[in-house]
């Protein structure tokens, strides 16, 4: 109850801040009320849903790849010091590149369309997931791994019953960021070569300076991302009991 209250309070504070911003720069931002109203009308309009569906499809694939790949990469690198030494700096360096510059390469490999968008989302999301998981695994108390060895658990068992639960808080943090960045990546992908999708809507809105649509899209994106993040946090609290 108190939690819900705090949450609402924070949203209110956010809106007040937003309103203040709006008053300071009406051209850059529409007011929260206006934006939410616009978001509502967009959510009801039949024109918007095909775009959402298009983005959702690409996002679903990208998320699957980013999370699956990120966890596989992060966990295995966390457990294997040698390969981590090899892969980690390379991973981060490539990640630090402005993604636009990878566009020609992505075009070459995936062509135009869905696969390119998925690829864009995946390369955005996979690294945070991997890095969080890797560091958490690396810092697992030694005695936990020893316990696993004494029980002669298989690699897979050790992974699923000790490593993953032990590293869960960090894994969840990685997933939370990964979820959001993957979404962003898909949107950016849609801005490069698109004919449909939320990214396309955003790009046109930015192009014609349709601030209401921009802000409304952002409200909708925020609702999705916050829900996902809250769900993951809830999951973390359920699964990982901490000291009170």
């Amino acid at each position, binding site marked *: 109850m108190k939690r819900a209250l705090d949450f609402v309070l924070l949203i209110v504070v956010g809106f007040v801040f937003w309103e203040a911003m709006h008053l300071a*720069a*009406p*051209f*850059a931002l529409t007011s929260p009320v206006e934006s939410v109203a616009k978001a509502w009308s967009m959510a009801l309009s039949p*024109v918007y849903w095909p775009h959402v569906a298009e983005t959702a499809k690409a996002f679903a694939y990208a998320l699957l790849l980013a999370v699956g790949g990120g966890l596989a990469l992060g966990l295995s690198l966390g457990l294997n010091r040698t390969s981590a030494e090899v892969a980690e700096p390379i991973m981060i360096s490539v990640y630090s590149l402005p993604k636009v510059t990878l*566009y*020609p390469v992505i*075009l*070459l490999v995936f*062509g*135009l369309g869905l696969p390119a968008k998925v690829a864009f989302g995946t390369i955005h999301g996979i690294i945070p997931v991997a890095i969080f998981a890797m560091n958490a695994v690396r810092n697992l108390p030694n005695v936990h791994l020893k316990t696993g060895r004494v029980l002669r658990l298989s690699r897979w068992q050790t992974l699923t019953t000790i490593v993953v639960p032990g590293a869960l808080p960090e894994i969840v943090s990685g997933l939370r960021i990964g979820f959001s960045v993957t979404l962003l990546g898909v949107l950016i992908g849609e*801005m*490069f*070569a*698109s*004919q*449909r999708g939320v990214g*396309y*809507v955003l*790009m*046109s809105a*930015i*192009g*014609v*300076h349709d*601030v209401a649509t921009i802000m409304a899209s952002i409200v909708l994106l925020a609702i999705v991302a916050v829900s996902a993040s809250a769900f993951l946090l809830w999951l973390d609290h359920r699964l990982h009991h901490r000291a009170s």
Partner: protein
Amino acid sequence: EQVTVTHWGVLLYGAPYAVAIDKGFYKEAGLDIDGVITSAGGGTTMRNVMASSLPYGEVALSAAIAAMKQGIDLKIIHAGVRTAGEQLWVTTADSEIKSIKDLDGKKVAFTSPKSVTDMLLTMIADKHHIKMQTVAAGGIGAGLTMVEQKAVVAAPVMDPIWPKVQGKMKPVFFIKDELPNMMQSVGVTTAEYAKANGDKLRKLVQARKKAVEFVYANPEETAKIVAKRYNADEKIILASIKNLIAIKYWSDGEFEFDAMDNMVKGLQIVGEVDGKVDWSKIVDTSYLK
């Protein structure tokens, strides 16, 4: 299949394509065009054209030239938008700035470095012998915000954004009053594709030409079609289309080499191009008939 059009959904380069799809001009010609791929960057659009299964599209002339300078084998097969006259610089409604002369010594925004707006602004300064402090805003919206915040005194805007801000902003100058026609965009394809698919390209160009004629003849219906495709306000689109018809914005495809040379001259001023462009090597007029 999809054609590629720069700034689709934003600027009205795409109006003829919207009409051609909607009115079935492509279908009549036996083409199955069901959509438009777009992006906002010149280089990106050019790359999309090359990567597409149908490597044909309308791109910024500057992007086409840049690509060719880097040795990409392209063919320009028709003219697109033949003027940059729809652009104008605006200031706040209550501003003291009234004419170009008032901009002397002031901060004025363009969109992004080496873009058409950058070039136009430089040419204006040259023409009127004034000195401005020009800054990159990052986009139309950002420029307008800067004007509003008094960070700059003027920023560029164009159709179809202009009718939307017309009440809040007032024009300082229109390009159409100041500079000659400059070809903004052209239809391109890869040389390789052109070799094997001459017929198809010809049909594409013809369908567009028919659509352009339709636009000039039926502004109202065009506005309806474009508003639907762009998911925009029909009134504003109609106002813009009328503005654009007045300056004969869309070319029916015929090349106007003076307008193209004007553009190259502008690009030379901002240092985008050095030396002449030999049109005969890259322009192929054979698809116009």
